[in-house]
């Protein structure tokens, strides 16, 4: 279980996260929705240990992201908006490099496995700069899965993916959840999110303003709720929301 408590993060005078708290249980796929600038990427970067919050703490098992940063980072896999790959290396060389950084056991075998998972084996020995956006995204997903992380953080992971790749990614997420892993998915695509996630959280005003299990949630009701919440601009009105 991952428990983030009272996360606060500002950029200059602009406060992006305002005492946000969030819990992810094993086996959960949580979709994080919110308007542009709501702080979804900031939250993911804080959870990925790429940004340090001014306040707050992230508990993972018996430790926090600050008390044992290496163990914490070992337990997360991250797909951000940029693919974070090296264009002058091949797909396989990229994965080999990251498997050395993550000290993946049996790394050649694991690299083959994740290449198969994202259906890139046939193009694995071509330079990444020759890949399409969708292929780079698939390779980024392979990189995130390489060390078999307990928590997957994904920022708009469907960007650039065709229907087949989207279906592969959804199946990977479901499999991860079935294996007891946690998935946090930032997205604008509420319909897709509702169909694959176990819970939907709406981030607004720097906090989780609304949080509901996805099961039984009707798409129409979800869209209405989303519109109502994101229309509110007075942050103080949101302070009583689920967090």
């Amino acid at each position, binding site marked *: 279980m991952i428990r983030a408590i009272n996360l606060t993060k500002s950029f200059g005078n602009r406060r992006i996260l305002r005492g946000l708290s969030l819990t992810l249980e094993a086996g959960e796929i949580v979709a994080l929705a919110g308007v542009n600038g709501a702080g979804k990427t900031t939250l993911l970067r804080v959870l*990925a*240990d*790429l*940004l*340090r919050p001014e306040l707050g703490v992230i508990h993972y098992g018996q430790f926090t992201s600050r008390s044992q940063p*290496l*163990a914490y*980072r*070992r337990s*997360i896999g*991250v797909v*951000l908006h*940029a*693919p*974070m*790959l*090296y*264009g*002058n*290396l091949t797909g396989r*060389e990229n994965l080999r*490099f*990251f498997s*050395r*950084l*993550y*000290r993946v056991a049996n790394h050649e075998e694991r690299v083959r496995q994740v290449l198969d998972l994202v259906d890139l084996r046939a193009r694995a020995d071509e*330079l990444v700069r020759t890949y399409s956006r969708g292929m780079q995204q698939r390779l980024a997903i392979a*990189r995130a899965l390489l060390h078999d992380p307990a928590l997957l953080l994904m920022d708009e992971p469907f960007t650039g993916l065709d229907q087949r790749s989207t279906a592969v990614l959804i199946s990977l997420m479901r499999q991860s959840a079935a294996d007891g892993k946690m998935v946090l998915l930032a997205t604008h695509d509420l319909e897709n999110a509702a169909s694959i996630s176990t819970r939907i959280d709406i981030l607004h005003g720097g906090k989780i303003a609304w949080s509901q299990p996805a099961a039984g949630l009707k798409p129409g009701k979800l869209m209405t709720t989303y519109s109502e919440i994101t229309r509110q601009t007075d942050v103080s009105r949101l302070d009583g929301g689920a967090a």
Partner: protein
Amino acid sequence: MKPFIGAVFAIFWKDLLAEKRTREILGTMLVFALTVILIFVFSFDLSVEMRRKAAAGVIWVTLCFAGSISLNRTMGLEKDREGFDSLLLAPVDRTAIYFGKALVNWLYLLITAAIVVPVYSLFNNTSLFSWGVLGVILLGTLGYILTGTLLSSLAIQLRARDMLLPVLLFPVVIPLLLAAVRASTILLQGGSTTELGTWLLMLAGYDLLFSAVGVLLFDKIIEE
């Protein structure tokens, strides 16, 4: 310690592999360094003795400017392609990024020195090679790269990074360059061994100091 060293060499090999394909950094450094050397050679009509006296200054100025190219590019390429985030996500002490980058920058600068010194010797009809000079080049370039890698990791966070690095770097490396030029001059022309010892000690001290500063500050510098 083993994961740390593994990460340092993983970053080093990754950069070398990418450079082998593009020759983007080393190629630029060599063209720049050879141009500077040729300009110095053909600008002044000096006697062989004078050219030998000027050698240390010319070579260190050339290495210093050529080195700033690799310092800017190796870090800049990570930032441009968001590769830096992927390095920060890795479960290794982040100082490994500093030493991995420093190692690859040092190699580029040593390759540049290995070409620049014989070219200068050839055009000036004077031999500059000695084990002592080699030692000074190793110590001097190491200090320069340790300082430069640290400051380039600071500069890449800012918008005007290409312009900012020389502004930050050159004032800080003045003591190092003075020690390197003086030690090289004594080795090439003869001089007090006590004075040589002092300059060498200063070079070694500078290298140690900036290794320690890198270990202490790199994580803080790259955060956000």
